[in-house]
Structures are given as structure tokens and as C-alpha cells.
């Protein structure tokens, strides 16, 4: 049976050309970019190349890119690094209720240290209100951190408008955007959109795990959270992960090409998925409106079913999905994102997340739909309450 992987929001397979580039690095260009000899210089060159590729996807300059050990470190760095740097100016930050744990937990850590954090609610589509955000801004607000695309529902925040509003308003708090789920799938251009800091992750764009990046607008200052050899201009100490960096550059290059050429294909997959699911299960609920959500993430609730049972039953059919984010799927609480959208427990319990990538084909979806129908019917026979 052909396996169908619909958990691309958790992680994506690494592209063959990315693996090639990584192997080449591990075998041949294994220098430490801080070394002065040829191998070191060669490694340094490969870092610059990768920065170039990522910066052309983001339409920023190369020197605005810092590499990290992953999206979590990038988010931690942005939130903690800004708060520590601006603490004399103020100690108030604004974020949303539906951020990734790597943002929410960083803010929780700041609260323990006397910072004040306002959490913006979202509507039933998972979207914040610009007016509400505006009303929360105070003279001592130093940071606004809002994700672009939510990892569980795919809901899109009006980042461009937020950026414009913050840049036009008083105080001009630093604006951080967690773009880990949107990078390469939706346009996001920090330099033009008024974004000061933007987090990215390699393994969501077909590059390896263990590599991420932070865009830092020129002139924006943050405190480092790792101390040591002062690599990457002193902002992030630690020997650069060259294979990871090169892999991320290759991934970014491929995503930029796909975004330019076939941005519409994800939308086609989504509309076929939605149509197929709602046809087979008229009482299924799409969490988040189709218009307000990105094309590669669909969160669907089957009232009366349990998401986890559905997940495992689908697995027997060779289909891989998720009940929420991978990060929280080991902890038993309900999704904080779906809760923030005001869903009732019946839907909360029966929700699964389907996430596609540019590697997902229409054929995959056509094969998936009957397997889903079969699986749900099989479970319903036992568990329908």
C-alpha cells in the first residue's frame, strides 16, 4: 500500500538535492567557518551562499540573516533577546493566545522575571482583531509577536497590516513574526512589511531538522541568548552548522521556485480535500474558515469521534496525519489553539490536522479520500456515542 504523508506541518521529507548538498558538506567542505585556512574560507563561502538563497526568498539582505539550531531557538532569541535589550524602555509585550509554545513559553519565562504580557484573543476563524491589538499598545510596549500562519489550523494573521500599523503608530514596538509555517508557501517579505524579526525553520521547508534562522532587520538590536565564541557577529555563538545551513539554503531556493511557479497547486489540493471530506461527512467541521487559512493546513473535526483513534486507524491505512501540533501531541491537554477559537469539546476531541507540501500530489489526495471514508466508517461502528 502506498504511504500517504499528510503531516507536513510537523516535519517534511528532505529533498534529494538537499541531502546531496549536505553529504558534500559533511565529506568535503567540513571546515569550521571561523578557521583561517582554505577549508574554513570555503565553509564561510557556503554560509554566505545559503544566506543569499534565504534572503532572496525573504527579499531582504544577506547580513540580516542569522542561523540558529531551529525554529524554537529563533523564536526564543527574538522574544527573550528583544525583551532583555529593551527592558529599560519598557516591560510590556503583546502576543496572541494561539502562538507556538516556543513563543508562549518564552513569554511565560519573561513573566516570571517581571515582564507584563498581553495575550490577544482570536475569533472563531482563529484571526486576531487589528483594533484590539491597537488598543493594547502602551507607551511601555516594547515587543509585539504574532505568528503568520498557525501551525494547527493554518489561520493567517494580517501581518502586513499589523506591520504598517505598528510602523505608523507611536512607540514603534519591535515586531516579531513567527513565519515557520508560512515560509515558502505564502509570500512574506519582512523588509517591505514592517517586520523587524522573523523566525524560520529548516525542516518545514524540506531542509533538515536542527537548523533555523532569524531575520533581524538592519538596525534592530537584540541581546544574544547564547554566549561564547561570538560567531555570526556576536549575535549567536556556536560553531555554525554548515551542513544544516547549506541544506536550509537549498530548501529555501526550491521553495522560492515553487512559490513563484505553483503557489496555486496547494490551493487546488485543499479545495479537493475539503470538497471530498464534506461530501463524505456532511457533519464534519472545518476549524477555521477556508478563506482565512493557508492552503497547506486543514484542521477538521469529526463530531463524536476521537482524533487520536482516527489517527492510529488511518495509520493502518498507510496515512500519516496529526491531532494537533507534534510538539504538543505528547501532552494530553486539548489544543490551546482550538480552545482559543471557542470550539466545543466534541469538536476539540474529534479534530485532526491534514497538512500538505509541494510534494503532495492530487493522486495522493484521491487515494486518501476513500481511505479516510473507510476508516471513519470502521471506527464509527465501534465508538459512535
Amino acid at each position, binding site marked *: 500500500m502506498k504511504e500517504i504523508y499528510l503531516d507536513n506541518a510537523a516535519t517534511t521529507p528532505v529533498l534529494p538535492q538537499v541531502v546531496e548538498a549536505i553529504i558534500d558538506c559533511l565529506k568535503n567542505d*567540513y571546515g569550521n567557518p571561523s578557521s583561517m585556512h582554505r577549508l574554513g574560507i570555503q565553509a564561510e563561502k557556503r554560509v554566505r551562499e545559503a544566506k543569499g538563497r534565504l534572503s532572496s526568498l525573504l527579499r531582504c539582505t544577506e547580513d540580516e540573516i542569522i542561523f540558529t539550531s531551529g525554529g524554537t531557538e529563533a*523564536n526564543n532569541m527574538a522574544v527573550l533577546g528583544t525583551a532583555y535589550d529593551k527592558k529599560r524602555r519598557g516591560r510590556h509585550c503583546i502576543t496572541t493566545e494561539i502562538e507556538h509554545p516556543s513563543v508562549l513559553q518564552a513569554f511565560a519565562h519573561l513573566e516570571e522575571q517581571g515582564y507584563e504580557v498581553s495575550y490577544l484573543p482570536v475569533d472563531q476563524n482563529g484571526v486576531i482583531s487589528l483594533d484590539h491589538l491597537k488598543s493594547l499598545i502602551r507607551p511601555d510596549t516594547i515587543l509585539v509577536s504574532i505568528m503568520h500562519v498557525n501551525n494547527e489550523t493554518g489561520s493567517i494573521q494580517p501581518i502586513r497590516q499589523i506591520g504598517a500599523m505598528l510602523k505608523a503608530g507611536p512607540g514603534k514596538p519591535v515586531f516579531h513574526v513567527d513565519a515557520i509555517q508560512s515560509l515558502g508557501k505564502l509570500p512574506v517579505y519582512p523588509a517591505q512589511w514592517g517586520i523587524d524579526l522573523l523566525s524560520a525553520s529548516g525542516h518545514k521547508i524540506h531542509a533538515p531538522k536542527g537548523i533555523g534562522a532569524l531575520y533581524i532587520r538592519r538596525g534592530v538590536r537584540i541581546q544574544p541568548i*547564547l*554566549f561564547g565564541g561570538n560567531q555570526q557577529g556576536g549575535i549567536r555563538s556556536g560553531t555554525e552548522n554548515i551542513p*544544516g545551513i547549506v541544506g536550509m539554503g537549498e530548501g529555501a531556493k526550491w521553495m522560492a521556485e515553487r512559490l513563484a511557479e505553483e503557489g496555486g497547486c496547494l490551493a487546488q489540493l485543499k479545495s479537493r480535500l475539503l470538497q471530498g471530506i464534506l461530501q463524505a461527512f456532511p457533519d464534519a467541521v472545518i476549524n477555521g474558515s477556508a478563506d482565512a487559512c493557508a492552503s497547506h493546513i486543514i484542521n477538521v473535526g469529526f463530531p463524536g469521534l476521537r482524533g487520536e483513534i482516527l489517527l492510529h486507524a488511518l495509520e493502518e491505512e498507510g496515512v500519516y496525519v496529526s491531532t494537533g501540533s507534534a510538539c504538543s501531541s505528547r501532552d494530553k491537554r486539548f489544543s490551546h489553539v482550538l480552545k482559543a477559537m471557542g470550539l466545543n469539546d466534541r469538536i476539540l476531541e474529534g479534530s485532526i490536522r491534514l497538512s500538505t507540501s509541494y510534494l503532495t500530489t492530487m493522486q495522493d489526495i484521491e487515494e486518501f479520500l476513500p481511505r479516510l471514508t473507510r476508516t471513519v466508517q470502521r471506527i464509527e461502528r465501534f465508538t459512535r456515542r
Partner: protein
Amino acid sequence: MGDRIYLDHAATTYTKPEVLEEMLPYFTKQYGNPSSVHSFGRESRKAMDLARERTAKALNANPNDIFFTGSGTEADNWAVKGAALANRKKGNHIITTTIEHHAVLHTCNYLEQNGFDVTYLPVDEYGIVDAEQVRNAITDQTILVSVMTANNEIGTIQPIKEIGAITREKGVLFHTDAVQAIGSVPIDVDDMNIDLLSLAAHKFYGPKGIGALYIRKGVKAQQMLHGGAQERNRRAGTENLPAIVGLGKAIEMAALDIPGHNARLEALRNRLITGILSTVEHARLNGHPEKRLSGNVNFCFEFIEGEALLLSLDIKGIAGSSGSACTSGTLDPSHVLLAIGLPHEIAHGSLRLTLGEQNTQEEIDYVLEVLPQLVQRLREMSPLFNQQKGGQIFV
């Protein structure tokens, strides 16, 4: 002998083919997120568990006490900052040495800015810390001692077991940065009474971008990265699975035959040291003649700039370093060489050559053929050398 000779293994090593082999399936086939509950994720988790067991075995530790990080720097930061902040109620005094890696020293500076007192113990002319000085520096406020297992620049191996015995007796936490030591110095966290230990895979033929911190059960260390519940809720971030698998394989291989590895490298190292001492005058070996890493050679050549020598060697196809890679971009003399008592002008003229498993005697002999000529040529251009020619010999 290849067209270039790599003698900078302390900066970073290549990844062994066997290690790479084990990593590859985790990029394209078994790419699941280890936190996912489906079988893709569960398979990933199994691979991670194996890597954790291999790492634990190499340190004689419990697998539950191994936590993977994004680098050696992160492991050092986490150990020092995490242990200090989590134990602040017990005291605010930390003891370390003047020759630690900057990942430890700069973290200590950060802690000083945040109300901690840090004692930087001096070292002797060989770069060795006196365990009794550690004992004498401990006060009722001391919560943490951090001493590296082996130094990255001059290769000096510290009396870790003695220090561990003292910290255990005094009830103080003991962290050791073993980034350079893995594969050369046998580690037993129980026997050596180590509470926290940092390591990085790319120093022992594993990939870059992955490190680990050993945290003894019951030792409190405040979290560094906040977010998901990975690494038993102590280190957030999607696990870097291929690299973790690579670290596991690499450390297993590195721990397999430490005496054999050391014997091979020591033979080459001693040939290089003896050869340099007998062909280059005004050359000083930095670090201890015996208590040093099997692959480490560090010399000062009076009257010349380390950088100039490095570039000349590079042209001849020999890759070395003038200090640690991290600081080689700066013009400050090495803090380690200053700590062992070298004056500024001599500390500038240092050369570090660090050997690895693939180096051959032929390569060493080529270095011994080329190096004296290069030193001689650079000295002939040096006004300092011409002034002092015939003067006192510095060794």
C-alpha cells in the same frame, strides 16, 4: 598523502562515512518528527533512544540523564547558566578557570552582570589547574565549579577526578566542558563525580549542529530554550534526528578504542613535537609534555606572527590554526596563552596543529620539511628577529 593536510581537528572534524551512513535514512525515508504519535514518529523516537543509550554508555551515564542540544556552546551555556540560576537560593558563587572556552567564560561574564560572583582560578605554566586551589576557593556561597576536561588550544588535560572528589565532598555541583576530550580522555561520570558534562559531535567525527549535556539525575538546571515538551520537557525544539543519530554513532566509535586511538596519534604528535624542537630554534611547546590530548601540538615561534605562518602553511596545503577557531578571527592574543604566562608578543606567534585519525607519518614528515623553512623565511623579514639575533634564546 592527499593534496592538502588537515591539521585542525580541534576546530572541527570531517564526518566519518559510517556515521554519515547511519544518518542518511533519517533525512529522506525515516523523516518523522520524533514527537509525532504516528509510526513515522515512533520509529524516529526509537532511533533517538538508541543514540541516547550509546551516548550514555560512552560516559558511563544513565540514558535518562542525556539531553541533546544544538551545539557544544548551547550545552556549556545551559550547564553554567542553568545550574547557576536554578541554585541561586543556595548561593551566588561560581568557580571556573582562566582558560575555559568562551562559551563558559562569556556565560560567566553574563552571570556576573546578574549578581553572581565568579572566581577565575589561575593555571600553572603548563595550563594545569591545581585541585587544591579549587578546594580553597570554595566558600559557603559556592554552588558550581566548572573546569574543562581538556583545553582546546594547548590540549592540557585537567585533574577532573580529583576536582570531582572535592566538589562531591563539599556538596558543590561540578560541570566539565568535555568538548575536546571525548574520544581521547576516558570519561566515567560516576567515577569522576561529574554532575554536568558538555560535548559536541563535530569534534569527534560526527556532524555539526548537535551537542549534548549530561545532567545527573536530581541536578537542577534552569531551561535554556522554551517551547515544546521535547527532551523530557527540558530542551524545547524539534529533535535534530539525523544529527542525533550521527552523534550516537560517532560517540560509540570514539569510545570504542581510546587507548589505541591515543597510541596512534601520540606517535605522530611526538614525532611532530620532537621534529619541530630539533629543527626550529626559539620554539616553545605550549601545554604539558605528557598531560595533553593525543592529537594536540601547540607552539610559539618567537619573532613571527601566528597569522602569517598560518597563511604560508595554507599555501603549502597545510591547514592549521593560530588558536581556537572561534577566536582566530580576532587579533587579540589567546587568553589561554596569556594565562600560562606568555607575554603578549610571544602569544601572538602561536601555531596549533591538531591531528586526526586520517593523518599519516608521511604528512607529518612533510610538515617537518616545510615548517622550519617557512619560520626561517618569516623571521628573515622580521626586524625584531634581526635585532635580537645572537641574543638570548627563548625556550
